[in-house]
């Protein structure tokens, strides 16, 4: 079980790593090309993994409903937007925002499938998430704590110093 805990954490780190690597690449070649390279390399890698572990035979059983094409297309878009946000906001905020989007979508899907009682509890979580998103917009990662003027509590001044 401790192995699974470890693997799940590693999984999260891998997600963060792919985000950071693609973001770095997109600085050089742009977000669209970065998405292309991500999918190409991932495709080659998965082909190898399938040949080594699963066996090519499984692929022939692959039924491809129209859904499947949508998943891949959305994926291309996702990496594109992810790299863009990574360049603008950095690793932490990107991770937090993507997670927030996932949670909100999850709750909406759960609500639509008619589990109102549970989603009431989930709403509390969503409120916290939205509060966190609001805070992350108004915090500047570049301002160390010491630079905020604590002796001048005039809120107008406080806001302008954050906006500059």
């Amino acid at each position, binding site marked *: 079980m401790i192995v699974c*805990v470890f*693997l*799940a*954490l590693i999984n*999260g780190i891998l997600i963060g*790593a792919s985000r*950071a*690597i*693609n*973001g770095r*690449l997109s600085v*050089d*070649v*742009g977000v*669209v*090309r970065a998405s*292309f*390279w*991500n999918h190409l*390399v991932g*495709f080659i890698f*998965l082909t190898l993994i399938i040949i080594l572990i699963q066996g090519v035979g*499984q*692929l022939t059983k*692959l039924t491809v*409903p129209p*859904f*499947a094409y949508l*998943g*891949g*297309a*959305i994926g291309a878009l996702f*990496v594109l*937007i992810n790299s*863009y946000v990574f360049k603008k906001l*950095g*690793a*932490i905020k*990107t991770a937090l*925002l*993507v997670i927030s*989007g*996932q*949670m*909100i979508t999850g709750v909406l*899907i759960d609500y639509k499938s008619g589990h109102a009682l549970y989603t009431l*509890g*989930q709403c*509390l*979580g*969503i409120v*916290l*998430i939205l509060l*966190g*998103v609001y805070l992350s*917009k108004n*915090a500047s990662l*570049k*301002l160390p704590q010491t630079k905020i003027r604590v002796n001048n509590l005039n809120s107008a001044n406080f806001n302008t110093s954050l*906006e500059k």
Partner: protein
Amino acid sequence: MKIKSIDIVMGILAGVLLSLMIYCNSIVAKGSTPLSASWFAHLVGMVVAFFLIILFARKSNTIHPENKMSRAPFGAYLGGIPGALTVVLASITVNGSLKLSSSIALMLVGQVFFGVLVDVLGWFGIFKRKLALLDYSAILLILIGSIIVVVFRP
């Protein structure tokens, strides 16, 4: 430096898209395996990205720096490998002894933890950023909120 609302919206949109993508892929995976579903998704994504390049990015959006020293290293092209690995790992942990909500929560923690390292230590060539109190609060709120959402899943 002011953070634009549009960037925030894009970040959340990315999360929405990711959920939709996982949902689509899981449907395909039911008929076969997660590996095959992801393999196909990568293939489609590759083709779609290629067309996006032709449509929108044919003129160099490329900003290859003149100075060779500041160019991305070869490793920057390998972002697809950890991305594909997550599918492999997810398939392993799903059949493991961990509850789904726990593994999701751990993945969230892993992502944010790694993000903190990248931002604070300046890995992957981005500018080092210092964390302010509000940033810690945002991290805590979103993590705790997410765990609540996951725990209360029907």
